[in-house]
């Protein structure tokens, strides 16, 4: 039996972006973007589920983000995870990778008991690949990045094939270990219809509060209990649940700041038009030869 925690992230679909989604302070207004499940994280989840299928154990999915990030946790439930956690708090907003990994590591300490942490190599909104290693460092555990394949798992070690520049290597690690995975490491399974039916009504406490809307606090407690009993509760973690230093969270705890954002302009000074004819190409070759490009 091996327990896994999977770090997942809801990301803006960076294929469809305009300048308007950037706020004046240079941060991203994610509310304006189509949000998707970061694909490499989905692959990481698949690996964790494969470990569970083969050896037994528990898979827990964790995300940090705004309330709507619970969408991808619901998807995790459809795919077969046992438990989900949404780490959300205004105080966590604007976090760079260092502040993110600090909060993630504190939440993981609270969630506890695991052999593996899986995560995608990087998320497509930042492409930094930093949160995995930084979370591992904060937890004081080893890391394997750029994983391509789990080769084997035995009593107290795991062998992982990882990509390196110009080839690959196989690493053997003790537990616990954090592993970040490449997109080809596994093919994510489709949703299971039964689970979609079962979990489509999974809700976080904030969702339930909206349902209650003004009714008594006692009632919300009852509702939370009910959802928990039915495994329909998306667990929420806020600063109140963690023993965190506020100075190390969110924008306050982020050493890197966005100083300036510019749209990309890579225009040349205009080009010389060449006719697609024998004469045209002949003159082009002449010009290039004169400029000593050839030879």
């Amino acid at each position, binding site marked *: 039996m091996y327990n896994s925690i999977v770090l997942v992230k809801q990301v803006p679909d960076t294929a469809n972006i305009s300048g308007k989604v950037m706020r004046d302070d240079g941060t991203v207004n994610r509310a304006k973007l189509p949000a998707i499940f970061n694909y490499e994280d989905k692959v990481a989840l698949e690996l964790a589920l494969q470990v569970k299928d083969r050896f037994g154990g528990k898979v827990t999915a964790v995300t940090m983000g705004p309330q709507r990030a619970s969408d991808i946790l619901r998807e995790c439930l459809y795919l077969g995870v046992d438990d989900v956690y949404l780490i959300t708090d205004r105080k966590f907003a604007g976090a760079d990778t260092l502040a993110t990994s600090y909060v993630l590591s504190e939440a993981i300490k609270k969630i506890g008991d695991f052999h593996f942490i899986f995560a995608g190599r990087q998320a497509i*909104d930042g492409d930094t690949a*930093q949160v995995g290693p930084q979370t591992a460092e904060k937890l004081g555990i080893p890391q394997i*990045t750029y994983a391509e394949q789990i080769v084997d798992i035995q009593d107290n070690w795991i062998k992982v094939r990882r990509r390196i520049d*110009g080839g690959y290597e196989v690493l053997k690690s003790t537990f616990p270990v954090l592993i970040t995975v490449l997109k080809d490491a596994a093919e994510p399974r489709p949703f299971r219809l039964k689970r979609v039916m079962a979990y489509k009504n999974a809700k976080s406490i904030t969702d339930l509060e909206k349902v209650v809307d003004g009714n008594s606090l006692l009632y919300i407690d009852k509702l939370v209990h009910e959802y928990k009993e039915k495994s329909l509760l998306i667990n929420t973690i806020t600063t109140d649940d963690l023993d965190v230093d506020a100075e190390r969270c969110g924008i306050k705890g982020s050493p890197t700041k966005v100083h300036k954002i510019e749209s*990309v302009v890579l225009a040349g000074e205009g080009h010389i038009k060449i006719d697609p004819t*024998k004469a045209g190409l002949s003159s082009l070759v002449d010009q290039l030869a004169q400029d000593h490009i050839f030879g």
Partner: protein
Amino acid sequence: MNNITKDVWVFIEQREGKPADVSFELLSKGRKLADNMGGELKSVVIGHNVKEIAIETFSYGADESLLIDHPELKDFLTLPYSRVLNELIIEHQPRIVLFGATVFGRDLAPRVASHTKSGLTADCTDLKISNVNYLGKDYEDLLLQIRPAFGGNIIATIISPDVPTQMATVREGVMEMVKVEKPKDIKISEIKYSPIDTDKLIEIIEQHREESKVNLKGAPIIVAGGYGLGSKENFKLIHDLAQTLGGEIAGSRAAVDAGFISSERQVGQTGVTVRPKLYIAVGISGAIQHRAGMHESNKIIAINNDPDAPIFDVAHYGILGDATEVIPLFIEAYKHKLK
């Protein structure tokens, strides 16, 4: 922020005892950054029997080399390498530490930045020193870390104003590698390494490397094809033209995804950055991610049948036409000229 130096450190990556080009590219850039601040440039070399590499870093501008040489450090391993760097950084407080944005660099840098609570920016395409006013406060000689963000749609300038050490990883081939005319006297500080148990939680069981036969970065002429060529058959035209001109073939990401060409020949943000004497883009529309990897080429020829293709914006010569007609004419004109 006491005892903060103005020093720039470059982590020198070595694979099987050979230094990575990107490390020397970073030294060349680091030399300029150190000069701008009035600090020193130091190379950090970790490995086994790698003194030669430490010596070589002086050809690229190092003032001093920190050498950590030990049999157990022969191959890159996150835990011992990061521990060595953490201890050195905490002791010496460099102002800037640079890493190549390679697999190892992107594995190591965040681990070190986390431990030392430094700011770290990934995959920078440019670095500058500048005075900055941020939120009403003046900062002297900050490192401007310039990188594409959001899939290459925007360029962000990142700063780490309030921490002692600013760290960045930089993509291979983005900075120019320049040997200095008069290298400084060689000054190597050998630093002792004593293994501890937690350095060995991960071990390497097997390693497999193939020397890449592809050298796009060094090719003076590159003929690149895109998805617009339509088929693998048409892609043969790229081979023909490259062969005629004595150049290398390359492709856009779309061409790689379509299976027209192998991924090691991909030019662009997620591929290789090139600046050849001549870059011929055939059937490449010129998405920003592609242009980012080739727009500094000396001469660019765009061949495309779409007059609105953005590739024409960065081209020096534009040929509006069908590749299957233009390329044979190109080959014929070239052969005729050389006769």
